[in-house]
């Protein structure tokens, strides 16, 4: 398209819409928005070819703030809306913005099916472990025992792990980042955009009004080096302030070990984004604070034919074998007779 070629170099500001942002001051959503605006200009995709689709929730207001096409749809259905759009308009770059409630509570089934179809969408789940927009009920990712407006005696549902679900549906790209870790977040968003096929990104996001500090352990200067672990493809799993700790495989389970004392990097578990079997990614997705440092970065990045390609190649295929459809032929197929 002409516009693609004559595309002026865009800046983050070019991706800002004219609407004033209506999140609470201090909300983690702001920094995700900022990183998205930084990343998009680096993708070489014009604004008019980019579409943000969201459900309902604070996070789902996101599309209003982007100077692209957008649909702020209904609660939980963004993956389905985006599937219809991408399947019929493969030329577009389609993002899905969802929350832990929007995406895993009411929308869990759509998420699951759009992941298993491997349709080329970039799904970003803002996980603040709470229902923000409705003012503070627990969500499917709220920890067991969490006290909220709807659980004064503590939640009795065991939380879902977004990445475990995604991997259970054989997602071809799975990653995690943190709202305040802006460089890392930008990197992850870019990787997600570059992956062909479905990309699922969980972002730890602080809701400073209804769930403040949910991720203190992972963001706080003093502790984050010990509570998170940055995944790097082909590298051993090392963490700690002085990178003095590592993850080793003990049978089928991970264990934390101190480096030195006869344990060298080679004894550690090495990360492999490209592993055809998702077993490693699954194991990593189950490492949870406080027992383990929580991995951030790209868990899995593999290739598989995409739904949007497949649906269109069947059309090409059908035209090749049957020829471009002709209505008159269609009408007259089968038994006909003439009345004169």
């Amino acid at each position, binding site marked *: 398209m002409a516009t693609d070629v004559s595309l002026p170099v865009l800046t983050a500001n070019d991706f800002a819409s004219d609407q004033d942002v209506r999140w609470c001051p201090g909300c983690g959503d702001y920094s995700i928005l900022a990183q998205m605006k930084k990343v998009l200009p680096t993708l070489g995709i014009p604004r008019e070819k980019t579409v943000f689709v969201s459900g309902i929730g604070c996070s789902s207001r996101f599309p209003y703030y982007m100077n692209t096409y957008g649909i702020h749809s209904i609660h939980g259905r963004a993956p*389905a809306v985006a599937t219809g759009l991408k399947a019929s308009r493969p030329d577009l770059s389609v993002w899905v913005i969802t929350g832990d409630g929007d995406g895993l509570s009411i929308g869990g089934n759509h998420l699951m099916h759009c992941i298993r179809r491997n349709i080329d969408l970039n799904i970003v789940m803002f996980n603040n472990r709470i229902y923000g927009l409705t003012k503070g009920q627990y969500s499917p990712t709220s920890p067991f025992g969490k006290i909220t407006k709807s659980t004064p005696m503590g939640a009795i549902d065991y939380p879902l792990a977004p990445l475990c679900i995604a991997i259970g549906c054989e997602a071809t790209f799975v990653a995690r980042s943190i709202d305040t870790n802006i460089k890392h977040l930008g990197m992850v968003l870019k990787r997600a955009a570059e992956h062909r096929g479905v990309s699922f990104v969980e972002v730890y996001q602080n809701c400073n009004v209804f769930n403040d500090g949910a991720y203190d352990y992972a963001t706080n200067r003093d502790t984050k080096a010990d509570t998170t672990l940055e995944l790097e493809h082909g590298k051993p799993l090392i963490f700690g302030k002085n990178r003095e700790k590592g993850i080793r495989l003990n049978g089928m389970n991970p264990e934390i070990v101190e480096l030195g004392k006869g344990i060298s990097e080679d004894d550690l578990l090495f990360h492999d984004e490209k592993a055809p079997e998702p077993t490693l990614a699954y194991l990593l997705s189950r490492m949870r604070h406080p027992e383990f440092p929580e991995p951030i970065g790209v868990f899995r990045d593999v290739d598989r034919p995409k739904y949007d390609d497949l649906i269109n190649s069947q059309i090409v295929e059908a035209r090749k074998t049957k020829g471009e459809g002709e209505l008159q032929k269609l009408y007259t197929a089968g038994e006909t007779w003439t*009345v004169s």
Partner: protein
Amino acid sequence: MVTTTPGASKPIVDLESATVRFCGDSGDGMQLAGTQLTNTSALAGNDVATFPDFPAEIRAPRGTKAGVSGFQIHFASKEIFTPGDSVEALVAMNPAALATNVADLVPGGILVVNKDAFDEKGMKQAGYSASPLEDGSLSAYQVFQVDMTRLTRLAVDGCGLGQKESDRCRNFYAMGLVFWLYDRSLEPTLRYIDAKFAKKSPAVAEANRKALHAGYNYGETTEAFAAQYRVHKAELKPGLYRNLTGNEATAYGLMTAAKRSGCELFLGSYPITPASDILHELSKHKNFGVRTFQAEDEIAAVTSAIGAAFGGALAVTTSSGPGIALKQEAMGLAVMTELPLLVINVQRGGPSTGLPTKTEQADLLQALYGRNGECPMPVVAARSPADCFDVVQEAWRIAVRFMTPVMVLTDGYLANGTEPWRIPDAKSMPPIEVKHPGPAHNGDVFHPYERNERLARPWALPGTPGLMHRIGGLEKQDVTGNVNYEPDNHQHMINTRARKVALVADDVPEQEVDGPANGKLLVVSWGGTYGACATAVREARAAGGSVAHCHLRYLNPFPRNLGELLGRYEKVLVPELNRGQLRMLLRAEYLVDAIGLNKIKGKPFTVAEVVEKIQGLLAD
């Protein structure tokens, strides 16, 4: 009148029309038998109407009443609109079929039974203590007991089929017999056998051919049958014809609307009886650029269609009963975002899961009021199988002209019923105009909710430079399309959405009536009851009654002249397969004391039922 044609060994009785029903076990191939007689009669130049009656979804054990499948064909030398109230000839392949169908056979009618099936077990399953073939309970009919199983086995002997396979040829034997009875050519069926089996399995082809001929000859040779019947050509509009079910017509209509509007067709659907065949049909035509998405549920089906509509597709979702209920929230989003979308409801028996394979008209009020808030959308309904073809195209025309979702109502009776369809000329069809705004030049702002004279907003497609905009389910500010909670804007938008839908009335033809422009009684109908009502009104008028018929295609908004029209008759009768949903709308809108004729039995009206009601109203 009876004539004897040279060549034919028995006298031939000419009939104006005939109604025949094949019935047997789901496994007996009755649907095929019916289809063959239908095509043969159509090819012979008759007007035809059919009514296939499947057992409920779950397949029942062989030989039980629950497993009975039937197919009724009405063929005539005059124009007909219904499959007929009762049957003049009934073919029953087993006791269960006899038990469940014989009541519809007219006194003196022809009853052909497969005698071999009337054994202990079979009769017990059908609930017969004594054999109906012996206890005289069938004395009102001309009963022909044929050892179909035995004779078919004999006929196909030597084709090298096992017994089970041989017995599968029984329906062809029955067809042959009926074809003889109505002096029908075997050619079309022989062609069918060739096309269907010749390659796959020559033995089966051969056996079916033999069974068909055997049945035919049985009629010819046995003493049993005294005469043959013949139904002459009908006076039909000249042209090329074919048979079509309502669901096929819907699928073809959608593909045609896509071509006419230059949009690519996207169907988001989740299987459900009796709508699934639309999905099946469309998925066969990918070479037309048709994309069919079998979604994980009805909500994903409709929301995926909304996404496709945003992208510029002719977006459709199809469902029935409970599936439509699930789509209501998303339809609200389509109304709010003012995107063109077709929601096709093949109505079935309700409430809840209800009677999945039976027909009903009880979703009209849901179509109008099933959503939260004031959420208007146009509603149109098809009146016959072939009419589905026209109605979906008209619905799409409205959808794009007014930028609105449109609900299309058909029903299980239309979906599976067939009628001859006069094949249109694709090239001569006018385009359905679709305009998308072009790129905007730097600086000038785009207003996604700026409206034209029809109050339609622009359909700006992703990919168009400079038109980037966001839509959603929160109340919108007019013109800018920004989220807006201001009281006056909300009132304005509520009024605007309502006015836009109301304006559709100016864009569609005035309502016409069949019959006197004023008089004693007006029959108002909608949807699949057209055939019964049209026939009944004509009969009543032929009998001297002052009665006219007004069949509504547009249910929201109503045609602009409807109120004035209703006023021209002393009484208004509204026959419906529900508890009076259209009646209620007419009463509320026009304060007319409309009378109802209501039936909710999972079956269409018989002409007689409507005639009787009309006579009653004309009498007092």
